[in-house]
């Protein structure tokens, strides 16, 4: 156990935790927009998988991670529109329609991978950015300031989301539509337009999250997300629908995962137990949901489609 408390191990866990938190963070922030406006999009994992494959394939073909990110954005945007069409206009049962998107994403990303790529080949990753000065600080530098560019960008999205949700008119409309769509509607806010926008934002961010995941790992494989999209949805609950809470949740997850990984590397967890260790995120999520459910309540209109005059 003592080898876990060496400088190298601790730094690796913290730095790895931050890296692993990023896809969850991005997908979760996106899902927050939808949920605050009253739409639970369960398809995040499927969109992440499609974004991950699209991003991976674009980088494989072009050699540019940025083009991969762009493809992830495009795929996420399209899937966001599809999700909005289902949830908002067609008023599909939100607890189920997202499962369809998940199965489609899981199958289709694997299908294209097998058809177009076959054997996994590594791709170039995002460039690293050592923040001048700060990255030289012992311990902290390596933990926080020697990451790839997208990781800083992802964390910059947190204050941006807070500003949009809390300070802008659009954000006010989102909250109004999520809490009391009838009232918002009577004041002239288009419930469906707001929800179309938030679900599309959520889909786009899920696509980005998937692309970051694959490009940061430099690889694609079947079911690469391993249910991270579902954990991202749970994180929105965990973070009580607030970007800062979500960041804390995502970091906690990242750290736990990095810790488990490190303990496997150091063989503190025997290989036989790796399946048991893989349960931790899901079990933590369930416990977290229990804690959160007793303290916070979700937006009142969550999962309820809006029909004027109904």
């Amino acid at each position, binding site marked *: 156990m003592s080898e876990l408390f060496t400088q190298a191990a601790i730094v690796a866990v913290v730095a790895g935790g931050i890296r692993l938190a990023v896809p969850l963070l991005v997908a979760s922030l996106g899902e927050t927009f939808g949920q605050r406006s009253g739409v*639970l999009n*369960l398809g995040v994992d*499927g969109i992440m998988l499609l974004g991950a494959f699209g991003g991976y394939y674009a980088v494989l073909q072009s050699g540019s991670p940025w083009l991969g990110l762009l493809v992830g954005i495009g795929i996420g945007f399209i899937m966001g529109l*599809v999700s909005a*069409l*289902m949830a908002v206009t*067609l*008023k*599909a*049962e939100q*607890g*189920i*329609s997202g*499962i*369809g*998107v*998940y*199965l*489609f*994403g*899981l*199958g*289709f990303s*694997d*299908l294209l991978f*097998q*058809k177009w790529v076959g054997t996994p080949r590594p791709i170039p990753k995002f460039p690293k950015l050592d923040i001048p000065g700060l990255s030289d600080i012992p311990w902290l530098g390596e933990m926080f300031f020697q990451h790839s560019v997208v990781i800083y960008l992802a964390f910059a999205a947190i204050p941006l989301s807070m500003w949009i949700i809390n300070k802008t008119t659009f954000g006010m409309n989102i909250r109004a539509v999520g809490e009391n769509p009838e009232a918002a509607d009577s004041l002239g806010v288009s419930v469906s337009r707001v929800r179309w926008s938030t679900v599309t934002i959520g889909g786009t961010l899920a696509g980005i999250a998937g692309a970051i995941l694959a490009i940061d790992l430099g690889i694609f494989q*079947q*079911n690469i997300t391993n*249910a991270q999209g*579902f954990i991202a*949805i*749970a994180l929105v*609950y965990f973070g009580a629908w607030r970007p800062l809470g979500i960041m804390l949740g995502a970091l906690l997850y990242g750290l736990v995962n990095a810790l488990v990984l490190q303990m496997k590397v150091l063989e503190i967890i025997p290989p*036989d*137990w790796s*399946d*048991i260790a*893989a*349960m931790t*995120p*899901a*079990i933590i*999520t*369930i416990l977290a*949901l*229990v804690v959160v*459910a*007793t303290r916070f*309540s*979700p937006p009142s209109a*969550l*999962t*309820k*489609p809006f029909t004027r005059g*109904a």
Partner: protein
Amino acid sequence: MTIEDVRRRRLLAYSVPILAVLGALAIGAIMLIALDADVVKGFSRLFSGAFGSTDALIETALKATPLLFVGVGITIAFRANVINIGGEGQMVAGGLLSTIVALNSPDMGPFIMIPLVLLAGLAGGAIWGAIPGALKAYYGVNEILSTIMLNVVAVQLMNYLLRGPLIDPLEIERGTRIPQTERLVESADLPLLFGSGRLHIGPLIAVLAAIVAYIILWRTPLGYRVRAVGQNVDASRYAGIPVKRTIVLALTMSGALCGLAGAVLVFGSEGHRMVTDGSTAGFTGSAGFNGIVAALFGGLHPLWTIPASFLFGGLLVGGLALQRAVQVPSALILALNGLVVIFVVSADRFRRRLLERPPVVIEENDDNNRNEVATAAVAAAEPTSGDHPEGGDS
């Protein structure tokens, strides 16, 4: 609106899910064209592979069996306004518990062993359903999220057990280490219907389960309470119905049926053993999710879920034939599967809307008083037509 109009609307309503499936297949065809596959050959195989021969029909019935169990289970939960996405995990839990029982009990002959392992499956699924039920009822935890997480836990538990404690000793000896149990005790094999071939009694048990579920839901006080809670929680509470206990029970029964599906998969399998490929779908064939579609197909009515499962099972068997015929990776099935879910769920609103004319419908049934199933199917649409199931946090 005349009775004729109502009939026409109802017929239209029943055709909605079928049209939705055709829509999904159309997108699938576009995908195949994009992948340079022979679409015409593929789709002709889809239909012949599902319904074209006795063997195909048997295969379809076997595929439909877990869908029916899960679909009926989902229906019970849905009636209580609880969305059970945990069919996958509950199937795994049922499969595991029944396997463990078979491995550890002395051979007591088929008349004891078969009911014993089926009951074990029932119990395993019931436990896995009771957990999210209790979390929802007593802590207000959203059951959609908790059941999804329990799916993940169940799969890892299965992988751990089948790679370690439950692995076939032969696999270790030979060094192949395929994560599977030894061949389970022969007297627990599900009997074959015609003495040979592939068709075992699983489909019959599933149909029986659907009938029992129908009776429970519409002919017992428990079923009444489940439906009352699903329609209106507050009214049920004022009427003295133990709402929390009813929610737990609904999810427990729902899980039990899924667990039974898991046991039938194990003891009706060709290898008569439990095996994993590391994913959930490897054991369940995504039946935990597909059963939801079968339930929607059947208008959330246990009896209508019987033909709905058969049709949907055919689609899955046919999909497999299509995939083999045009030689694309089997991931295609999962993608098609997802499209079907998307289309059926998205179209469900049109079906509900077409069935929404309660006053006239009641009149017609008073006049004719014969179409019990259809009435129930109309009732099936009620809880979701006005009041949508909530995420579960109240």
